[in-house]
């Protein structure tokens, strides 16, 4: 299969492929409009979610490598019942029953099945490759859902959807802010998990409440999906039991604050992060872009700098801005400054693929 890298930015989507000795931008698609999420399926189908601002969120699909795009239906929220009380518990502002952002898009091993996480926090499922979407009512109607609260965004949202490659009925979601939720029955019922995550932004007696956690991003090891890595607002956590319990990792330097995390597809002890100064400042420590990597289950971390700017660099890497290819060696990440870097040796050396892209929202390998 031809490997492809898809980059969603404030001004469109960019498709990259490997030609000769390096990677090149093969196509700029849908220029001019923000692309909040991208997905490249194993069969070559591409999906993008656009945020058109005035005109709302749209989704498009391409089956010819991005040459042409067809408008596809977007997930729709149900009619809000008259008198229904639904307010963000922090801000006391009404939560709109209206799609504001597609924040997660994942393909299931089950043919045609896609999952979509959104702001305001809802989960949608498609069983026809994105031709239609159904809201997961068990979650939307769960009374605990109304305790979810917005973090950096105005409303709570689902940014991570993990589908178990061995059993696609097992689905987990990461919510900012409402922690980690798991379903063993394809979304029919939900269990709040994530014991052990810690929220320093809450009063001490509430800091360990799993409902108040702000995982920025949750990923699972494809070959051993009971192993999760979590880049949390407070730091790094990992779980070895599918998210039931989590352990805080406090040894990463130069910082354990960040948004993005990826885990090696075969080796659950190997994971990468892009750290920044916590927590309101959010820029690389000392203005030097680094990637941190552990290969021993967080007993130690490497700080990877080769090929990355080490002076006056203020790149922020969003939660979907880092990805790893299925080969376990090729990684790519993109920043708010429009820089895009790629490594083919697990991060030991990085090459800059572009320094002039629009602000980057998401970076994903296809397949």
């Amino acid at each position: 299969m031809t490997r492809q890298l898809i980059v969603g930015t404030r001004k469109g989507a960019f498709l990259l492929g490997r030609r000769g000795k390096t990677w090149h931008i093969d196509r700029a698609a849908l220029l001019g409009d923000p692309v909040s999420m991208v997905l490249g399926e194993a069969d070559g189908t591409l999906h993008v979610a656009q945020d058109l601002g005035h005109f709302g969120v749209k989704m498009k699909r391409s089956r010819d490598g991005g040459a042409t795009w067809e408008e596809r239906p977007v997930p729709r929220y149900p009619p809000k019942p008259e008198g229904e009380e639904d307010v963000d518990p922090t801000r006391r502002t009404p939560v709109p029953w209206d799609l504001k952002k597609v924040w997660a898009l994942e393909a299931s091993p089950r043919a045609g099945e896609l999952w979509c996480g959104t702001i305001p926090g809802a989960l949608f499922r498609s069983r026809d490759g994105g031709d239609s979407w159904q809201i997961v009512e068990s979650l939307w109607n769960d009374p605990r859902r109304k305790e979810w609260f917005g973090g950096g965004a105005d409303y709570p949202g689902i940014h991570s959807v993990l589908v178990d490659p061995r059993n696609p009925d097992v689905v987990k979601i990461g919510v900012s802010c409402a922690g980690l939720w798991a379903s063993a029955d394809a979304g029919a019922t939900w269990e709040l998990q994530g014991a052990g995550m810690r929220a320093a932004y809450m009063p001490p007696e509430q800091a360990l409440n799993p409902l108040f956690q702000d995982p920025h991003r949750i990923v699972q090891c494809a070959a051993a999906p009971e192993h999760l890595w979590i880049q949390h607002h407070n730091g790094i956590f990992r779980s070895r039991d599918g998210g039931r319990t989590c352990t805080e990792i406090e040894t990463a330097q130069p910082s354990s604050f960040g948004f993005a995390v990826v885990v090696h597809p075969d080796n659950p002890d190997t994971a990468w992060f892009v750290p920044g100064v916590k927590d309101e400042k959010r820029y690389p420590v000392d203005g030097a872009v680094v990637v941190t990597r552990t290969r021993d289950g967080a007993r130690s971390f490497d700080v990877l700098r080769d090929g990355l700017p080490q002076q006056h660099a203020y790149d922020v890497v969003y939660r979907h801005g880092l990805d790893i290819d299925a080969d376990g060696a090729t990684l790519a990440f993109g920043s708010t400054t429009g820089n895009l870097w790629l490594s083919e040796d697990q991060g030991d050396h990085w090459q800059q693929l572009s320094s002039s892209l629009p602000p980057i929202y998401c970076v994903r390998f296809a397949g």
Partner: protein
Amino acid sequence: MASVHFTQNLARHTDCPTAELPAGTVAELLERYFERWPAVRGFVLDDQGEVRKHVKVLVDGRNLRDRQRLTDALDAGSEVYVFQALSGG
């Protein structure tokens, strides 16, 4: 018959020609329009059927009053314009 016109900024995304349709309210006018051009609905109205926050609707030169239910009355010959509120980025 009332007529409805859409900003050219929307025509960039979806086919939305000017049309004349029989309607007593803005809601009726748009519903009839969406029957023929269903793709336009999601660009103008949100999931609850309200006018999108950054879409501006003018009825005979005045701002639409009822952006939730679009009950503003139309006369024969009314002109409805759907614009985007200005913003940058």
